[in-house]
Structures are given as C-alpha cells and as structure tokens.
C-alpha cells in the first residue's frame, strides 16, 4: 500500500503518507463488529511550496466514545499528542484536520459531520487557512477541505483502496 496525493483548493498538493494511510485503513468498518473510529490529522507544511503532507494520525484513545454509527472524540488525549509532536518536531508537525470512518462504500458526510467541521474551522486555534477532513469508507476514502476564505466545504479527492493497493 502506497501513499496518495490530492490537489488542494489553492493548487498545492496534499499527500497522505503510507504510514497515516495504513493506520486509518485498519479501522475500515467492513464488518458489523467494527465501531466508528477517528482522530486528528498531523503533518508538515512543506517549505517553499503550497504542499502539505499528512505524516501522522491519532487513533481512538481513552475517553473517546465509539459506536457503530457515531464517534465522540474527547479533547485532552488528542491535544496531548498534538502538543508532543509539535514540540518534538520543533514546530513542524502541525494539526491539519480530522478523520473518521463510515460503514458505507462511498462515504458521504452527515449533517453532524458538516456542523462539526465548520465548528472546528471557527473554534480550533491553528496556524493556517484551511483544515482537511478524511472519511474512510469501505471501498474508498474521500477528503474535504474547509477554508477560512470560503466557508463551504469542498470535496477535493477520492481514492479507491483497490487502486492504491497495487501501487
């Protein structure tokens, strides 16, 4: 399984590293026993470019409440990881957005998702213009961008696991 690359609204690239992709894919809700999962996206704003790389993700942690359909991510354990990676990387690994899973082939954000995304764009403190949101479906993942300059959410890419698998 390799990494994947999408084009952002501003024309720069956003890459999901192999490592981040592998960890998210472990939570694909492809059977009834798996509950919804999620976490935050962390990575680099590349020097001299508009490019971004999602290097790391957090996975469900203590305090999170997981159901088959619904996920509540508590603040503190994820914030701790964000702080630690930011410090260790001398300020270069940054908070970029969130991910979660859906038990459907092609993921479509729910009203709750969209409300939550907009809330995060307006209330989270972060040093950037956009946040990105990944939903891991059963057959594909999709990624949306929410920009401070343009409050509507925009689908910027979709990747079928079957295509990535053989790369």
């Amino acid at each position, binding site marked *: 399984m390799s990494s994947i*690359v999408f084009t952002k609204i501003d024309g720069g*690239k*956003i*890459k999901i*590293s192999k490592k981040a992709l592998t960890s998210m894919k472990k939570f694909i809700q492809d059977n009834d026993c798996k509950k*919804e999962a*999620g976490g*935050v996206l962390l990575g*680099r*704003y*590349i*020097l*001299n*470019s508009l*490019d971004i*790389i999602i*290097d790391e993700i957090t996975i469900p942690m203590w305090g999170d409440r997981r159901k088959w*359909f*619904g*996920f*509540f*991510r*508590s*603040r503190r354990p*994820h*914030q701790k990881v*964000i*702080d630690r990676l*930011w410090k260790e*990387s*001398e*300020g*270069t*690994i*940054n*908070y970029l957005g*969130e991910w*979660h899973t859906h038990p459907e082939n092609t993921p479509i954000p*729910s009203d*709750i*998702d969209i409300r*939550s995304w907009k*809330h*995060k764009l307006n*209330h*989270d*403190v*972060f*040093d*950037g213009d956009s946040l990105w949101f990944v939903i891991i479906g059963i057959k594909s993942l999709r990624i949306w961008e929410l920009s401070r300059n343009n409050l509507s959410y925009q689908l910027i890419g979709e990747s079928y696991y079957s295509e990535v698998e053989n790369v």
Partner: protein
Amino acid sequence: MADVQSQMIKFHEAIKLKRFDENETLRDKREIILKRLNSGLKKLDLDPTPKYEVIDQGSYAMDTGVKPLNGDYDIDVGISFKISKDDYPDPLEPKKWVYDSLVGHTKKVEIQRPCVTVYYQISGEPAYHVDLAVYSDKDNNSDGKIYLAKGKEHSHKENKIWEESNYPSLINLMKNHFQDSEDAKQFRRIIRYLKRWKDFKFQSKGNAAPIGIGITIAAYKWFAPNKVTNPFDNTTKYNDLEALQHFVGAVLSNFQMVYSEGVWTKRLEVLLPVAPGNDIFTKMTNSQMTVFQERLQSLFDSIQKAQKEVDPKEACTLLNQQFGCDFPIPDEKDTAQKRSPAIVSSSASA
C-alpha cells in the same frame, strides 16, 4: 513538486573536486612531477635538450572534476614538445624521454597507449596518478596541427602513431560554451552529478563504465540550462533536477540502432568535437552499452518519480539511491515550515 535544489547544491559541494589553483595537494603533486621532468630531461644528454610547453588538460582544467570514490585521484597534464612529428617517425621516442626522466620517481611509472602514467601510493593504496600526454606542438608542424604520441613499447608498428589531436583546445571550447556564468555553473554541476552517478553505479574497472569525458562531451552537446526568472524582482532560480532530467532524457534518445559486432543493437555515439573527432564510447562492448542504457533509464525514472514526489525527504531518498551516500537526505523537520501550536476542541461525528 518537491523542491530539492538546496540538496542538489549540497551534493555538488560534497563531490566537487576543486581546481588546481584551489587544491594545494594536487597542485603540489603536479609541480613536483614537472620539476622532476625538467631536471630529468636535462640529464638525458639530448642535444639540444627538447623544449616543451605544459598544457593543463582533463577535468581539472575544465572544472568538471569529481572526488573519486576509490580515492585514486587522476591528474592530467599535456607535455607539448617543440618538435616536428616528421623528425621523429617513432612517436615512442619523445614518450621515452618523459618516461626516462620520471622513472624511479615513484614505485611505478608506465608507458600507456595514450600517455605516460606516474602512480603514487599512500600506505599501499593507490592515491594519485598523473597522466602525461605527449604532443608534437602545432608551431613545429608544417600543417599547423597538434599530434599526440600514441603507442606502447611493444605495440605493433601500426599502433605506434602520431594522431592528430586537438584535445587541448577542448578546454577552451568548454570554457566558452556559455556566455552566462551562472548557466556555465549549472552546466558543470550537471556534468558532475552524472559523473558521480557513473562512479557509484559502475564501480568495476575497465570499459564497463562510461568514461567521464564522454559524459562531459554529451553535456556539451545536449545540456540546456534550466532556470526560472521572477519578473517582479528579476531573481533567477535554477532547477538542477529538471535540467538533469532533460539532459538524461536527451542522452537516452540519442541511443541509435547500429550494426556492431555482427548484430543490430542500440548504441550511444558521442563524437569528440575536436580532432581526432572519434566516438568516445567506441570501446564499450554492445553488452556494456546495454547495461549503460538500462541504468540511465533507471536514473531517468527515479528523477521523474522524485519530481512528482510531494515529500522532499522521499524525493531525496530516491535520488540518494541513484547518486550514493553523498546525496543528502534531509530530516523531516528541515523540510517544513515552523508554525504556531494548535488548540483543538472536542468533536462529534456520525
């Protein structure tokens, strides 16, 4: 996508062999040999003692040298005797003057087909060798041409020849190839990148490795500067990776089907732009040529992958596999902008 120009420049700094005037050790070695030659010639009791001119040649003179991976530095000097080739039908005679003047100077001095070689060792390992090419000066020949003394002592008579060779003028050709000094610098960087790639990928001896001068002449023919000028502040940014991609692509497209060794095969032909105008790669066998082409193609593919790669660290890892350990792989934190910390809220999803 990934901008690796700063890593390319670091790589270049690591492999660049400084020119004579900047490199004391090599300059000293060269001076010692030339002094020894001067006194040695006088002791030979030739009447009159032959006059000569020293010509800088080779990658030092062209400023395209790379540090050798095996530690065996190679210094090229031309000794142009003020003699007419017609007075010396046996080209080995002036070569022997050089040999006899220098023999005993180090453990090993040898007459090779194109030159006389003096080997230096440091604790048993080859450290330097100096190749002295012996010429008959153009001012002393009725046709005004420069001739190189070729052949070894026991060569067949037909292999002992004076070959027209305007190799010394190659230096000027290379020096004056680009008007813009920054373009000229990129030209020399591209040559050095490919020469180091060659040393790294062809570590065996012999003609299996394409020779450095072949790469230099190929660049003279097919390299084009690659840069972008910002119209607002008039600054110019060179893109060495793209320049290298175009150049390697051009070399690959110049492999042509030819009939050689009794079969049709793809070969690269690069003619020396000065006399004798021969194909520099002619000594490579068909199978060596095929390996050369395959490895160039692999280099080309890696460059393209690195260009598409978003992550500079991964792009450099790909290039490091082609160019060897001197190609730097940056730490992740050195590839990214420093931003202020984030504070996130809790969130719900469904």
